[in-house]
């Protein structure tokens, strides 16, 4: 049984299917590559899993419970974090505080505790910046921690997005084209970090546009086209799959 099981997941926008009866499993601890031509429903799949879209039909079973249609913050709290395709950060706040926001779901202090300065709230206020600094160190971002998130380089912003997601302490990480818009060198550094988080026990779903990169990093892959899954398997099988080649290159 996989950590995530997607059953008959369907989402329509008007007459267009963003997801059309999707079925697949994500195994604990694997990197599952999600590929497909533009508009094939990769990001929609992530939006469905993380609660941004509510499916018309179908289930997303995470650790035995159906999470389809739940609110994003509830799904995050259960342990699924994501990044976005376009860089998306709290750009007018400094890098350290961006990561500290990531700790929201793992901390508890509320309005009353904060105002009265309760012991647990004070303890959290001490711990959270420390943990955030540790995480920034792991992601090679210490040197920019006091800069505004909007003022750091594109590659650093990409890493910061993942850092925020990691701060939520997820068991599954959904990365939507993490290497989009950065140089090959920076991208390979980022992919190494992704491999390292996986080696620490994280399960990763990865949308990747560059086929070579996707083949190189994924343990298994699924291929989408027009909201349907057209292939599933290890990278070698995918590379040789006729339907996949056709979807990407078209028919003669």
């Amino acid at each position: 049984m996989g950590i995530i099981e997607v059953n008959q997941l369907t989402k329509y926008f008007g007459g267009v299917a963003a997801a059309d009866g999707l079925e697949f499993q994500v195994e604990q601890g694997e990197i599952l590559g999600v590929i497909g031509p533009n508009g094939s429903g990769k990001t929609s799949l992530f939006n469905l899993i993380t609660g941004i879209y509510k499916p018309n039909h179908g289930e997303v079973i995470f650790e035995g419970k159906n999470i389809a249609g739940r609110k994003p913050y509830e799904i995050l709290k259960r342990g699924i974090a994501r990044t976005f395709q376009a860089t998306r950060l709290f750009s007018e706040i400094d890098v350290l505080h961006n990561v500290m926001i990531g700790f929201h779901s793992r901390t508890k202090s509320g309005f009353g505790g904060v105002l009265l300065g309760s012991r647990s709230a004070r303890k959290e206020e001490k711990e959270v910046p420390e943990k955030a600094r540790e995480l920034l160190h792991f992601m090679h971002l210490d040197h920019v921690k006091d800069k505004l998130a909007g003022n750091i380089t594109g590659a650093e912003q990409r890493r910061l997005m993942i850092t925020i997601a990691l701060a939520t302490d997820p068991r599954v990480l959904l990365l939507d084209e993490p290497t989009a818009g950065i140089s090959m060198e920076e991208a390979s550094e980022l992919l190494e970090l992704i491999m390292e988080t996986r080696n620490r026990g994280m399960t990763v779903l990865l949308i990747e546009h560059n086929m070579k990169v996707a083949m190189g990093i994924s343990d298994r892959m699924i291929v989408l086209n027009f909201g349907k899954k057209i292939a599933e398997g290890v990278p070698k099988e995918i590379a040789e799959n006729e339907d996949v080649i056709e979807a990407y290159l078209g028919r003669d």
Partner: protein
Amino acid sequence: MAKKVFSKKVLVAFILFIFFALVPFLFKGYYLTALGMGLFYVLLGLSLNLVTGFAGSISICHGAFYGIGAYACGLLIVKTGMTFWPAFVLGTVITGIISFLVGIPFVRTKGPYFAIGTLCFGAIVSLIILNWVSLTGGISLRGITSPGGLGIVKFKGMTNYYYLLFAAVLLYIYINHKLRNSRVGRALIAIREDEELAECTGVNTRWYKLLAFSVAGLLAGLAGGLYAGYMRAIDPGLASIGHSFTILAMLIVGGTGTISGAIFGPLLLWLLPEFLMVAEDFRLIIYGVFLLLVILFMPRGIAGQLKYSLPNISKWIP
């Protein structure tokens, strides 16, 4: 380094504290009253800052909560014969409950929809206060008793009342400061920056917006109660849309999301026309010009822009 920055801010804050604590000794008569009245707007600016500054939701019914607080306190005194303090506490709580209930539908909306929703609520409140003559007395409610005293401290005239307001300002600053540097404040600021991203980062956005909105409403109600006790006669203008816009303009000019902006924006826009001795009609023009200049040249507000553009100066801004 970090410690030094901290101490500069504390130094400036301390000097300001001493200055404002000594105001009743430095100024008398008209100037004292003008400054004291300005503190009501500081209270409104600081409370609106929670929802508009931190959570980034533009609320155009802050005057309505101010009016509800004033009328709740005033009516309890006039109609039930309560003394000031219990009426004040009860009025504040009532305002908090109303803002919580009203907030429930509003926090489902974002951006301009939130602003328009709150605007409509503000309009409804001021119309009810104006037209429910049998309850509110229509164009004015008179006969409210002043606080008198609290223990041995007497609140008679602006000299003493000033300290009551000053204490409230310190409380509001404390709330702003504590929240800003906490898990709750970070959640609110995350909502302001990108609501969807905040939700995907684990923030229950509706709950936190509701929290900010209702606490802001409650604190506006508290300020309204103090106003009723000081003026002893109140009118529906307190809750009018124009008044709500004025409060919002004061906060925007000062700088949303900053504590110093929420204090000095209201003071500046209140005192400037007051000290220039221009007729009431020109006040709006001055607001308009100020607002325009600030939006064009300092989109983060005066304090916000100083902090952003001049990092050296920002070390001195508390």
